[in-house]
């Protein structure tokens, strides 16, 4: 996929963030083209979460962000969400004391009342398990079910760009690949996806492009069809 000429879905330029004196994210630029599936890989502590939190404005940062060609640098988290930039955050961020249904309905906070049932149906088609657990308290579910709910809730917001921060963390491989495959499905339908993982061969297989992030900087950007084996990437991990 060549995208240099087309307007990217999201383009981040020179985004940088720090915690006090610690520069967790050095000036970083990346983009996701419309309908593209992009994976960011990096070891623990690389700055992946910091990058995503800077993009979604959960933390302050320098740099610029455009979305569909529009400068959205000055917008707040909830305004970006209104435009369709939706993140399932690290640790899932569920409303733990609420039911599955309430979590999902909150995902559609910005939807018109008439749109709710259609979105619910779509989520239930992707994750039938959520339909069975509608009245269960979110925190009482298994890790896999909770992650399905986190993704399902994000989908309820009708994302134009879906951002996910390590959705497979702590899950059994089979459950993780079930969830990642669903992301592949959504991407086939045209949804732009920005996925962060530490290491997940499937995340590489699904993506069209991968960025390698280490020590707060992007070390490499590769089309996934040029990566022959997962071990090719190891040399980028230690800088």
């Amino acid at each position, binding site marked *: 996929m060549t995208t240099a000429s087309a307007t990217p879905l999201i383009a981040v330029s020179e985004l940088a963030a720090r915690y006090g004196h610690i520069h967790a994210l050095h000036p970083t630029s990346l983009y996701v083209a419309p309908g593209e599936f992009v994976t960011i890989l990096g070891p623990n502590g690389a700055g992946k979460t910091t990058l995503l939190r800077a993009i*979604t404005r*959960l933390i302050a940062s320098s740099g610029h962000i455009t979305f569909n060609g529009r400068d959205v640098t000055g917008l*707040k*988290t*909830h305004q970006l*969400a*209104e435009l369709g930039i*939706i*993140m399932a*955050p690290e640790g899932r*961020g*569920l*409303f*733990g*004391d*609420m039911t599955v249904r*309430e979590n999902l*309905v*909150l*995902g559609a*906070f*910005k939807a018109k009342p008439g749109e709710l049932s259609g979105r619910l149906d779509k989520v239930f088609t992707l994750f039938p398990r959520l339909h069975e657990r509608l009245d269960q308290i979110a925190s009482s579910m298994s890790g896999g079910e909770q992650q399905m709910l986190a993704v399902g*809730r*994000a989908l309820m*917001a009708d994302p134009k760009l879906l951002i996910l921060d390590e959705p497979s963390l702590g899950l059994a491989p089979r459950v993780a690949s079930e969830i990642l495959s669903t992301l592949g499905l959504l991407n086939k339908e045209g949804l732009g996806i920005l996925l962060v993982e530490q290491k997940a061969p499937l995340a590489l297989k699904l993506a069209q492009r991968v960025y390698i992030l280490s020590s707060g900087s992007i070390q490499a950007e590769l089309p996934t069809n040029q990566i022959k084996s997962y071990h090719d990437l190891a040399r980028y991990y230690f800088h």
Partner: protein
Amino acid sequence: MPSSVELIQSLINGVGIGLVYGLVAIGFSVIYNASGIVNFAQGVFVMLGGMFAHTLLTTLGIPIWLSAIVSTIAVAGVGILVQILIITPMWVRKAPLFAIILATLAIQLLIEQIIIITLGDQPRTFPSFTPGGPLKIGEIALGYQLFWILGCGALMVYALTQFFNRTRMGRALRACSQNAEAAALLGIPVNRMLMLSFALSAALGAVAGILITPTQYTAYSVGGPFGINGFIAAIIGGFGSAPAALIGGIVLGVVQSGAIVFFGAGFKNVVALTVLLIVLLFFPNGLFGGLAKKA
């Protein structure tokens, strides 16, 4: 030993004042859950409710029901102003929670001074919502205002429970209290929700102040005692749900009235604070465990 009539009478009075504490306690809980802020200006909303209603009623001759509604809305407006002018700017500048809480204390004192200057420092009251009474059952006398307090208190708690569980905005407020970042990521305007929580808390305080004034009096200084008692009730209730806060208020009100009958008026606060310490010792998260969830 007090007579049984005295005891029952004090129990009933205790429930009445306890409901008022409960409304203040719900106000504390609403803001605390939305933001982690303990709003020590909560009592000032109680005072403003009574003072505004009194002014509209006696100076402008507006009927009590309309005075009550207008005052409640006006006090909600004060709550929003506090949030916009003080809380949000501090929030945005990442002021420590402790500094914000101190600021709410300053707001209380400031508003009290403004009231002294504008409306004066004299205590005042207005008659019960419905004239006549009290209703006599044997030797026990029930002032009509008590029924207003019971009715309005129950109605408020019911309406609040419906609001938090059934409406889009109520659910969003709960979402902010559980995970504000996750809420923002779904498009929920967290700051607007904080504003809503201040409006709601202020309105609750105002209703409490309007309901209680006919049974005693209001003055610029009543905010402190109501705030403290509401705060104690909120801790007993665990800063959780509206019913929990209300029960905290009733427990406190009944214990205080009992203390007056048994030991004299001077022991009212001694007993109240003792109850608070006992609750904190044995139920450190409040009677219903609500405090465990936040920290």
